[in-house]
């Protein structure tokens, strides 16, 4: 056995630096920190919003003021001062809005290139239309023409407010109401941008849609809002990727994602989240407090959430499925990695209301270093959900003796015809598996990678091709030297 290859120690793993941690030096148009009704009016005016939206925001803000910050998640962090956050930050050079990629600040394009998603190349190679959100304002949307031919609307939500106000007004806030929870209310009040997708009846979106989020400016919160509507019989696959630069302060990210799925439609929503996780002492990093919910309003509607969570100092999100329509299907596939001082409290909610609804939950948690990870899930089968079915599997892999993995699955069943199974296991990487691989001449690190990859395979298989490759690479890089 080569002695050079087995030198990896746990420390080298925790010392791994954040690859996407560079700061792009461009002028930004940022509001001073603080939040009051004037700030909201300012944001709304800046975006030239109609009256109803401003009122909607103000109503959300007033409701938010009456709410208290929730503390039930299994995570710890110092109190957040919501008045020290700046609620609007747009790259200045974008004030007029670009018409095409050529008008985009080359520095921004460079940023994306560093992240490994050169827009042009992607446009070219992957056939993916990218709606990149850079500190809250969408800077570039590609492939618009091709989508337009198919009748698909894919644009920043601020643009949708101007151009398709009736669609936005009809669906905005119907899945996640403004008063749903503390962070959703905050988001409703101050959201600056996000994506809007509408797939008309019977249309299969000709390509995968993708958005890239990146928090750049200091002291800013990112509050994007995504709304996707799949009309009857349509299909769309939507990808989202996230990164943030390295900073000592904690930055807040409180997004809301709403999916509406009508009869026979399907949405596949994939996330690769790689926000800055903080340094090895747990300083800095993103607080990722996100509300994601899909509403299967139609019969036979389908939704699937796939997420790979490797970043953020604290991740707190539960992509949920409300299975209202009969025979609708909800799926949740998740891989979450916590290392160094990262904390994650994540999982899903499956609310079965319609008859013969079914849901699948596959959650894989990997915890290393001082990472603390919780799976928190709810499966609720209402009295009306005749013949509902759920299968839940959540497995945790522990690497090192200072990390933790926790499981809090809530199961509430009110219908006797429902069938539900839940299984969970927690273990460390098998020594015999490692030994077997090593005895075949595979280095310890490669063996760990192989085992972790096998552990996550069920979830990675659900990712679209390009993301699966990226996710695999992300895991490999993150686990460098993670042999405990």
């Amino acid at each position, binding site marked *: 056995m080569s002695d050079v290859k087995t030198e990896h120690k746990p420390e080298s793993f925790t010392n791994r630096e954040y690859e996407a941690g560079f700061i792009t030096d461009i002028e930004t148009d940022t509001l001073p920190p603080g939040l009051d009704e004037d700030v909201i009016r300012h944001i709304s005016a800046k975006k030239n919003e109609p009256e109803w939206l401003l009122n909607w925001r103000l109503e959300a803000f007033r409701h938010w003021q009456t709410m208290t910050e929730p503390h039930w998640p299994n995570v710890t962090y110092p109190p957040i001062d919501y008045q020290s956050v700046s609620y609007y930050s747009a790259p200045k050079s974008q004030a007029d809005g670009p018409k095409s990629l050529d008008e985009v600040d080359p520095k921004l394009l460079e940023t994306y290139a560093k992240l490994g998603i050169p827009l042009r190349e992607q446009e070219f190679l992957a056939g993916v239309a990218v709606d990149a959100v850079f500190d809250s304002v969408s800077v570039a949307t590609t492939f618009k023409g091709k989508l337009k031919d198919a009748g698909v609307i894919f644009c920043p939500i601020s643009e949708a407010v101007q151009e398709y106000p009736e669609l936005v007004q009809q669906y905005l806030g119907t899945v996640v109401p403004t008063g749903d929870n503390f962070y959703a209310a905050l988001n409703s009040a101050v959201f600056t941008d996000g994506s809007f997708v509408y797939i008309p009846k019977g249309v299969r979106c000709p390509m995968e849609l993708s958005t890239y989020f990146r928090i750049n400016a200091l002291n800013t919160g990112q509050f994007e809002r995504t709304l996707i509507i799949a009309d009857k019989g349509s299909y769309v696959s939507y990808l989202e990727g996230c990164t943030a630069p390295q900073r000592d302060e904690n930055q807040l990210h409180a997004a809301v994602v709403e999916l509406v799925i009508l009869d026979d439609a399907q949405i596949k929503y994939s996330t690769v989240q790689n926000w800055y996780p903080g340094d090895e002492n747990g300083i800095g990093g993103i607080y990722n407090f996100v509300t994601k919910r899909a509403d299967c309003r139609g019969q036979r509607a389908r939704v699937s959430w796939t997420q790979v969570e490797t970043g953020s100092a604290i991740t707190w999100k539960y992509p949920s499925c409300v299975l209202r329509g009969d025979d609708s299907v909800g799926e949740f596939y998740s891989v979450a990695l916590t290392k160094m001082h990262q904390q994650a409290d994540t999982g899903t909610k499956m609310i079965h209301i319609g008859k013969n609804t079914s849901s699948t939950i596959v959650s894989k948690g990997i915890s290393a270093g001082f990472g603390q990870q919780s799976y928190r899930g709810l499966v609720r089968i209402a009295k009306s959900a005749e013949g509902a079915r759920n299968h839940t599997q959540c497995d945790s892999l522990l690497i090192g*003796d200072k990390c933790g*993995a926790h499981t809090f699955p809530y199961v509430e069943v009110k219908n*006797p015809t429902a069938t539900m*199974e839940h299984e969970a296991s*927690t273990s460390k990487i098998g020594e015999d598996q490692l030994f077997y691989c090593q005895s075949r001449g595979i280095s310890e690190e490669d063996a760990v990678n192989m085992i972790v990859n096998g552990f996550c395979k069920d979830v990675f298989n659900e990712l679209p091709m390009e993301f699966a490759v990226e996710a695999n690479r992300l895991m490999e890089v993150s686990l460098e030297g993670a042999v405990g």
Partner: protein
Amino acid sequence: MSVSLQTVRDQAWLAFEARGLPTTRDEDWKYTDLSRISALLGEQWWQAAAATEIDAAAFAIPNLDAYHMIFVNGRFDAEASDLPAGITVSSLAGLIQDEPDKTIELMAYHADAALSSGLTAANSALASDGACICIAANTRLDKPLHILHVNDGGTSHLRSSIEVGQHAELEIIEHFAGNHDASGLTNSVTAIRLAAGGRCTHYRLQLEAVKQCHNGRVEVKQSRDSAYVLHAVELGALLSRTDVISKLDEQGASCELNGLFVASNRQHVDHHTRIEHNAPHCVSREHYRSVLDGRAHGVFNGKIIVGKGAVKTDSAQSNANLLLSDKAEIDTKPELEIYNDDVKCAHGVTIGQLDKNQLFYLKSRGISEEEAKQMLTFAFADEILAKMGSQPVRRFIERAAFAKLPIITDLEGMLV
């Protein structure tokens, strides 16, 4: 000791007054609404019932060869009891009179404030009686000890303590029973301590009368290589909640919790268990099942915590639930909290109806659908009872449990 028993009681009462009854806004009481207790019993629900006489013989377990310790409406009945020699058995009321110092430690315990509720504090303040058992090192009681608590309604606060010495062995049957139409509350706390190598098998049979409320708490502290086995059966009471807390504090300790609920009508049954692995090489097993009929509501919350130093922990938990009616409801939450990587933990939950394939198999062998359903329901529940070592207790529970389910028509035919 400087504090008097009265001080301890007063403190507990203040804690109770400060905390009151838990509400459904408390995470641990999310599914169990205790406001029903005060609605049923009035604001003074905690006030103990008057002494009456009940013929305890009517509640005996057939064919059980055991020692008996009988409590009637929360008061020890010496005449009806048959206490073993060779071990120390006394009633709490007797102990308060004879050796007040010894009871202070027992009463001062109203558990981790974080883990206990106002009901435990009320118990500390008001407990009138209970079984205090101490078995010396290297002793083994030849027969089980049957601790029977009967009531005819009204409220009683019971506080029991069981101390098992080094390498001693004890089998106890804690049995709550009643046969009346009145409402009341049985509020019982049982603290069990096992010294190194001690073994305790604990049957906890809750067969309260139909309108009684029951709140139970069992806290077990285990030393090195000790073994604790619990068979918890919940059949009676309108509203029942039991907390089982097992602390595996030293190496090699093991615990096994087996539970069965059979509930019908408007019964509400809630079991919260918490197993703390605080030391290396401990083993825990937990198997809970429920059969719910009518408008019954079952709640199960199984928490397993593996601490930082508890390496080589081996823990498994399973929970299976069978809903027989469309009005029944089950809420279950098997939790794992693990702070260490060298462990083997697994848990599983299933909820559903009888397996269609199994039904089909039996029907294809010429067995009628009703009979097949009956067999499968029986088998589902009996799998837990089959773990009981004591045949008389098992038979007794089988008869009591399956009498509640109309689906079981030929019970005697199935008892083998």
